[in-house]
């Protein structure tokens, strides 16, 4: 559709639900309502977009009639309007220059912005904590661990990780957690799954990891245990090859497992499998439907790690096991630990802000950096910036 010819100038604006990124003379506009995109490498269009995003312009820029009549600009505006991602408004329709409240992003110091707005000494950092992973083994001092847990909010999700079989008083820990209604996940290998006493069924569930090759005897035992109780269970198949993927699919079908994930496992020598299964292409990146909230999240925090800590059997605390130690529950209180993560840590606020992603127009459309980037030793796992 063409807009009627007028001699008037226009106010050009983008819709607030449109995410814009401009890198190296390449612009991406992403409509968060339907995932539709517009890309442009045209200098004139990029100039208009830059002007619109300038802080003092507050989301609206003047488009002269002369500019409007230029073919490439006119085509761009037609596409923008067709996809409901922006508009032009005749200047005679408003008394002065209007404003548009666009999402405030691509500010070069985003992390500082989020830090000062959310983590000042007046804000309660405990409100940001929502998941604790308790790594348990025979050396864990359950009594001291419970003492520490008592200083935490009660609405957290708890993951209890490890082989419970060897821990003498693990039921003391489960009894303690059982008094809270928040979710409690028991994470263990299928090789050492234990049957939970019926009294501990207040929002407990299993997350069972499966490595290959399968030990058939132990697998069958797991199936028996699960049949004997009502706790929900999710299987996590750790796959290192196409063969593992096929075996997982067979097990899923054979045992009619309805809740599962396939989790790629990097062994150090299966990069080809990763390139095939994990690395993202441009099409993969753009196929995900993202809301504006998702895009804010990707620029603000690491959505895999934010709000989470791990407590090891010796009391050491990490936000992410691949990153430096934050403290120890026997020596530090929870506030000291969390403040260390916010001030010096590398996990909660780790976003995709390293090269080559910083030069990529899909930087924020792409998922946040995961542990795979750390393990594989590359800041980007994609085919866009090889």
């Amino acid at each position, binding site marked *: 559709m063409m807009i009627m010819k007028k001699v008037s100038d226009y106010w050009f604006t983008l819709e607030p639900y449109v995410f814009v990124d401009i890198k190296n003379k390449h612009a991406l506009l992403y409509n968060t309502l339907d995932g539709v995109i517009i890309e442009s490498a045209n200098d004139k269009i990029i100039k208009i977009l830059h002007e619109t995003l300038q802080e003092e312009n507050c989301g609206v820029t003047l488009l002269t009639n002369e500019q409007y009549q230029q073919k490439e600009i006119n085509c761009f505006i037609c596409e923008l309007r067709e996809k*409901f991602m922006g508009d032009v408004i005749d200047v005679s329709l408003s008394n002065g220059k209007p404003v548009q409240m666009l999402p*405030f992003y691509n500010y070069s110091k985003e992390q500082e912005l989020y830090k000062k707005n959310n983590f000042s000494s007046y804000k309660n950092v405990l409100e940001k904590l929502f998941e604790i992973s308790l790594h348990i083994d025979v050396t864990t001092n359950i009594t001291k661990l419970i003492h520490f847990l008592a200083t935490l909010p009660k609405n957290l999700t708890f993951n209890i990780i490890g082989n419970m079989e060897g821990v003498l008083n693990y039921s003391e820990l489960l009894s303690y957690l059982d008094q809270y209604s928040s979710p409690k996940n028991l994470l263990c290998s299928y090789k050492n799954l234990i049957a939970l006493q019926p009294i501990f069924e207040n929002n407990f569930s299993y997350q069972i990891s499966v490595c290959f090759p399968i030990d058939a005897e132990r697998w069958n035992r797991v199936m028996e245990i699960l049949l004997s109780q009502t706790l929900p269970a999710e299987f996590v198949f750790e796959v290192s090859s196409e063969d593992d993927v096929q075996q997982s699919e067979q097990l899923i079908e054979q045992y009619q497992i309805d809740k599962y994930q396939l989790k790629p496992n990097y062994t150090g020598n299966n990069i080809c499998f990763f390139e095939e299964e994990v690395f993202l292409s441009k099409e993969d990146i753009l196929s995900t439907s993202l809301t504006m909230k998702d895009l804010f999240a990707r620029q603000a925090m690491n959505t895999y790690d934010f709000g989470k800590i791990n407590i090891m059997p010796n009391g050491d605390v990490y936000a992410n096991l691949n990153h430096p130690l934050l403290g120890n529950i026997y020596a530090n209180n929870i*506030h000291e630990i969390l403040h260390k993560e916010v001030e010096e840590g590398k996990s909660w606020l780790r976003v995709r802000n390293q090269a080559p992603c910083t030069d990529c127009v899909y930087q924020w459309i792409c998922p946040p950096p995961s542990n795979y980037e750390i393990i594989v030793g590359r800041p980007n796992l994609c085919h866009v910036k090889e």
Partner: protein
Amino acid sequence: MLAHPELEKASEKSTDVDPYYLKKYAYLKAHGFFTKPKPTKFAVLEESIVEDNIRNIKQVVFEVTDSCNLNCTYCAFGELYEGYDERISKKIDTRKAIHLLKFIFDLKPKKKNDKLAISFYGGEPLLNMQFIKQIVEISKQLNLVKQFDLEYTMTTNTTLLHKYIDFLVTNNFRLLISLDGNEKCHSYRTFSKDKKNSFQKVIENLDILQRDYPEYFSTNVSFNAVLHNRNSIKEIYDFIYTRYNQIPRISELNTRNVRSCNKNILDSMYQSVAKGEAEFRKEDSDLTRLTHRNSLLFSELTNYLKYVSINYYISNIRELLYNIERQLPTSTCTPFSKKILLTNRNKLLPCERIDYRYSMGKVNEDIELDISEITEQYNFYYKHIQKFCQTCYAYRYCGSCLFHIENIDKANEEGFVCQHFQNQEDFRNKLKNIFTFLEKYPKDYAEILKNVVIE
């Protein structure tokens, strides 16, 4: 969002609408725009939050005495009002105050540079200087272990300041001075003994402080002025800025808990800041430009950007993690999240601006704070107020404190209404003001998002 007039026509189901905007309207509607808002779901207050707030108290306020050497006509503890404990020239119980202080120092986890403010409030706090000196001394001793970033603050009428300047400066007190402007403006603030305007004494003491400690004065002294029928915003700014190079905070007369027999008196004295501001900002002057960030509309724009707009997540990062927001109804601070007040009757409250009848604990031989009961009490209010909040257009930020809502203690009774409720029309008017302001000052948008932090 900025909408083409034709889109507005489409939304109003007008005839003769440009077909493009009919299509755009249908598109937006299919994606959730122009639909009736769903009732908001709210969270409940959890005991762990209250527990944690108490463990991490940021400010302890002592009502040092209920005596005051002034008898300001509009004082919230004066003849115009009710709902406070009777003023009987009672000083705070020092032993109990120390007991509370030790309790807080014991409980608060050691954290480098964590702030702890110790504040003195009255009556006129300088009438009980012995107490203040004791608390300063003891808090310093207690802080040898915890090493908090300790700060002393005081609200004072300054008429007795000349006696204690050195002590206050030495201990780096932050002073909030009550000053309503020039002599005429300040005339409701009179001495109890002879009803004379306290202005000359206030100015004399402030001048001494500024002359002897100019640096301290510029960093530690701030002003609060009350707007009424004997002053104006212009006069207040003009006097305080010209004389002391400071921009004061301007507040309105308290309109809650007015004795019914005094309503007319209060009405005749009352002047709204919004109206006063509008008048003041009609002209463009150095003073209007200088006080731009203190204007009511700047503050409304700030609240809108921080709590309501699409950029809400910048200052509410936690909400990015949840599909359903975990917001509590109204804008009430969670109990003791900002401070704890000990009154001269040993009552504990979360703020000095809450009626003392809502006391939430006591200091006796023990610190009596029943967390379950406090949480239950708040949840009772939340449960009953949320029927209004659910459909209120200002549900994300109304600026209202539960305890300032009339009859909140009768929230479960029929006939209870929230007087701060905003319907579509109210909200539309509010937005109109905010956007008109932003059109005039478009740079404020980035300025607020980048540089204004709400504590």
